């Protein structure tokens, strides 16, 4: 390995669960008392492993436990893991937003993070003013920003609006400007998290290219966190997989992704109602989801173009008004294909107390060949109520369907659109 840029040494991070408030002052006093007597922290002993699939019973949880890895200069390393596995915590420790509970992190050079770009953008300031402010927040001084100002503006493609307050920018322009500032940072280590979820395809491509450049030409180290397996495998030769607060695999990206997929498989076979790797306010929960065919048989394998039906049971503790449900459809490597939203075909729903039955039929599914995964999302009055990844999975196998003469080829991509060819010449039998 080349000279190391980063070494993480036995790092752990403990969080307290639940509301801070009642009891926290007495906990603090207890701790202070224990410390005065030279005793260990009385609350640190009862930590449980960060396991989101079952409800934590302890007050304290180790979000990360004994993390060890090293990254060489100019390396570009991917980090994958489920929501709540500890990825964000790791990034927060690396970017010094919060301190580790135990262990040490050694860093060579300047480190900057892109945890959701556009941090510190002030809506009333112009693009120009925000470039300077944002650059300074990320650790650049005035000369450095001035020297790269034109480059930043050009990369963002916002030259025309550079003296307009950013509150008049579209969200796309906002992200582009923010990423442009960060991409031109004079740092040795760059942490990128989920930036590419926004912006148009062309800009995403440019960002990926820029990150690759930073690593190969600029000899900058990049840590890249994403749910999109396609961009991770395109960018990073090596990836870490984080599971339940620990590094479960560290190695060649293709192998990491394979293991990650396998892990998803295991998760999907566990009952949805038992899972706690979900976000939202919890006023309602998805407790059951099944994929059925036109004969109402539960199936996980379908033929190309075959109709399928997703049936869900949502449990509410109290009536919930103005709801909107979505199923996001992803292919095997995590690229989003489409969304099914209830409000596209129905008015907003009012869920009643108890179990609500919802189902969604795709009459002429355009899926061709491959694995498809579904993410679940429920909002009420624009507030997230329940959201979970990988709640169901379906495999589509090549088959003759509709006007097709033969089954589609295995490598024809995830979707199959209705289409018809015409030709004015003759055809062989």
């Amino acid at each position, binding site marked *: 390995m080349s000279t190391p840029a980063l070494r993480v040494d036995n790092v752990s991070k403990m969080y307290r669960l639940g509301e801070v408030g009642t009891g926290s002052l007495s906990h603090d006093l207890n701790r202070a008392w224990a410390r005065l007597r030279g005793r260990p922290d009385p609350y640190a002993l009862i930590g449980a492993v960060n396991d989101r699939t079952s409800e934590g019973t302890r007050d304290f949880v180790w979000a990360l436990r004994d993390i060890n890895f090293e990254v060489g200069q100019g390396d570009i390393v991917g980090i994958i893991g489920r929501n709540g596995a500890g990825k964000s915590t790791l990034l927060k420790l690396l970017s010094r*937003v919060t301190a580790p509970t135990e262990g040490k992190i050694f860093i*060579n050079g300047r480190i900057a993070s892109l945890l959701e770009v556009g941090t510190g953008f002030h809506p009333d300031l112009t693009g120009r003013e925000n470039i300077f402010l944002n650059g300074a927040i990320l650790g650049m001084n*005035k000369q450095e920003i001035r020297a790269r100002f034109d480059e930043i503006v050009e990369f963002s493609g916002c030259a025309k609006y550079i003296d307009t307050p950013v509150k008049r920018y579209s969200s796309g322009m906002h992200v582009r400007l923010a990423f442009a500032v960060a991409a031109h940072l004079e740092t040795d280590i760059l942490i990128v998290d989920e930036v590419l979820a926004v912006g148009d395809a062309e800009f995403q491509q440019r960002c990926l290219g820029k990150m690759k450049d930073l690593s190969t030409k600029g000899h900058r180290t990049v840590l890249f966190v994403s749910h999109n397996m396609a961009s991770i495998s395109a960018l990073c030769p090596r990836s870490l997989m984080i599971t339940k607060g620990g590094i479960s695999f560290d190695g060649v990206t293709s192998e990491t992704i394979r293991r990650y997929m396998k892990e998803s498989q295991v998760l999907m076979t566990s009952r949805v109602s038992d899972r706690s790797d979900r976000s939202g306010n919890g006023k309602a929960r998805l407790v059951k989801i099944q994929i059925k065919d036109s004969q109402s048989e539960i199936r996980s394998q379908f033929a190309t173009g075959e109709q399928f039906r997703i049936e869900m049971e949502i449990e509410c503790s109290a009536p919930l008004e103005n709801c909107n449900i979505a199923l996001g459809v992803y292919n095997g490597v995590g690229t989003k294909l489409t969304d099914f939203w209830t409000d596209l075909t129905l008015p907003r729903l009012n869920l009643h107390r108890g179990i609500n039955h919802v189902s969604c039929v795709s009459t002429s599914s355009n899926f061709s060949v491959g694995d498809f995964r579904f993410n679940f999302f429920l909002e009420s009055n624009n507030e997230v109520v329940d959201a979970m990844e990988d709640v169901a999975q379906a495999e589509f196998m090549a088959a003759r369907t509709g006007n097709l003469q033969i089954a589609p080829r295995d490598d024809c991509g995830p979707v199959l659109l209705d289409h018809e060819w015409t030709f004015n010449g003759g055809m062989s039998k």
Partner: protein
Amino acid sequence: MTETDKTVADRQAGHHDAQWTRIIQPQRGLLSVPVAEIWAYRDLLLLLVRRDFVALYKQTVLGPIWFIIQPVMMTIVFTIVFGNIANISTDGVPHTVFYLAGITMWTFFADAFTKTSETFITNASIFGKVYFPRVIVPLSVVLSGLLKFAVQFTILIAFVAYFAATTEVVQPTWAVLLLPVLLLMMGTLGLSLGMIISALTTKYRDLRFLMQFGVQLLMYATPVIYPVSALPDTYRIYIMANPITPIVEAFRYAFVGRGDFDPMHLAYSGGVILVLLIAATVIFNQVEKNFMDTV
């Protein structure tokens, strides 16, 4: 392991550590102030001051004139309520200039205090994503306050000049030379108290409610609308125990010519401020590293 093995291993470990430019660890010294780091971020400090200024008055018609309107309106109200209706003594000094002097100095403190006390809460979203020395934010707040003070101070000077020319009572003294010291004391006091409160509010939100009326009450415990000389003896000791009192009195003595000015009292203030500054550094350092977990 033999003795030599151990030293070799030690040396290697030491050599290994030396190649790293930064080491992130669970704890940092409680009294350490990252001076070099703050210096490295000095451009951010100035840009934040600029942002406060520019953003505050964008889309307002009068812009920075609001800086002036506020103390002038307060002075008018105080003159009517406390001067003319309640008839509280102003030490023989014309009401307007007496109140304006008190208000100018008081607002500098009150702004520094209240705004730094909100540091962690209002900046939680930025602090949650990027690291920079957190002290930069309170420092920028106090610097912005200093600029605002400069604007308001010119109004005071105009009033003082007018009354000095037309009356015998208002006479600035040599103590005007102490202005930088007084500002430094006032700024440090506001900064320290604000930092202590901001660090504590990350855990105990109750303090925010206390802050809302606490600062107002504190003003009445400070000789802003009355002079120390008008105090009955029973209360005097309490008002004099307030470290802000000597600063406001000295400021008034310097520019208006009346007030309780005693170097010993100022030294007392200085002592209290120093203690508060140390306490603030310790508490702030403690909270800075992990506050994102509790906010």
